[in-house]
């Protein structure tokens, strides 16, 4: 086709949804869209280094703030069409529902050497949210030595799936697709900053072609896809 492919930077957790949306878009308009799925941080750094992407979809607000602050993306175009919720999961065979009240004893729950798997608590968004949630629940200091930080939510999920970790803190979207885990609790919305996926158009790329796809990403067809993969559609 005549038009050159449009490149979209998207957080790795958006892989499925965006690929589906890309196909829908191509079927509808004939426009090819190329995606690059990586950690939001890596994508932000690449934009900073001059990567010619058109759209940036981050997995958290911090990296979008970062690109905005560096004047790499257009603040005015920011939308946050989807979000996610944070859940506590356990392997399906040992799962027991829990409630996060004052009486919940995390250490008893984990046993002598049980671990909680999540993303790196200082860099992977899910881990950052998990830390915030545990802190606000007053459990962080006790639990911190038991936290194992994985390189991505997926890796954390795998640790729980295989029973290597007694529990995990991941997004509900991830929990939804995993086979051998059960959600045993959802962290209260107020216990951590909202999990949001802000999208922005990259500076200098605000042209009709970009706009068209950007709008499609927030349109009704896309929302169906998001819902399918368990995202909280706003």
């Amino acid at each position, binding site marked *: 086709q005549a038009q050159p492919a449009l490149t979209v930077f998207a957080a790795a957790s958006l892989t499925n949804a965006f690929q589906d949306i890309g196909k829908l878009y191509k079927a509808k308009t004939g426009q090819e869209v190329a995606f690059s799925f990586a950690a939001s941080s890596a994508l932000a750094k690449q934009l900073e280094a001059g990567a010619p992407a058109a759209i940036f979809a981050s997995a958290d607000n911090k990296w979008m703030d970062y690109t905005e602050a560096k004047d790499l993306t257009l603040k005015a175009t920011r939308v946050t069409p989807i979000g996610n919720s944070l859940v506590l999961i356990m392997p399906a065979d040992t799962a027991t529902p829990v409630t996060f009240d004052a009486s919940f004893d995390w250490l008893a729950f984990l046993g002598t050497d049980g671990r909680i798997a999540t993303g790196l608590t200082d860099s992977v968004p899910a881990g950052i949210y998990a830390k915030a949630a545990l802190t606000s629940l007053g459990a962080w200091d006790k639990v911190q030595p038991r936290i194992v930080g994985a390189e991505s939510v997926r890796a954390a999920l795998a640790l729980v799936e295989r029973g290597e970790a007694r529990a995990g803190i991941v997004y509900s979207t991830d929990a939804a*697709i995993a086979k051998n885990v059960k959600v045993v609790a959802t962290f209260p919305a107020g216990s951590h900053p909202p999990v949001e996926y802000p999208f922005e158009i990259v500076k200098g790329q605000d042209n009709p072609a970009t706009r068209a796809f950007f709008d499609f990403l927030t349109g009704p067809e896309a929302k169906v896809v998001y819902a399918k993969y368990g995202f909280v559609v706003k």
Partner: protein
Amino acid sequence: MLTPEEWTAVALSLRVAFWATFWSLPVAVLTAFVLARSRFAGKSLLDGLVYLPLVLPKVVVGYLLLLTLGGRGLIGQYLDAWFGIKLIFTTAGATVAAAVVSFPLTVNAIRLALEAVDRGLETAARTLGASRLDVFFSVTLPLMLPGILSGALLAIASALGEFGATITFVSNVEGQTRTIPLAIYSATHMPDGDAMALRLTLVSVVLALGSLLLASLCDRRIRVMIGRA
């Protein structure tokens, strides 16, 4: 067996591995030669520099590449402005990342082979009228071929497995920079990606064994040729 998307990743991986090896090999030979055979002031520094990509996390290597060779990088901006060479996002960039990461391995292998070359033979060649350069090409190089082959094998293998520097430097764009490892990474982020990850892992294994087999065939022939069979 493989989806078109997967084939793309495999083809790309092969191209990247081939070109990364192709371009880095001569530089590696030169570097190894300089490190093994000459003495100069900054040698320890060069030595250190060569091993740096090995000792740093690949993500950091990718980040440093981004800083230097990215579109706004120290060198990258001139590459683009003067020669129109764009590395970020491109297969060329992925090739550079693979080459940089495999470079220490290649240099090391070649250097060990070079040090095993009998310098008496080089002296003999010079008494027969060959200049230093001529000696290098007619005696030293043929005798260190097993080492170069071994270096090339390491380069190909590590290029096939390279992930961190690539994704950090040139991102993960299908058909451009999404090599097998990046495709595996993407696959693990898809709910039904396990099968795909497994398939691609198997392809990696097959490629690795294939290049090994090829290398060991070449090796045997080379050894017969240089009389070290």
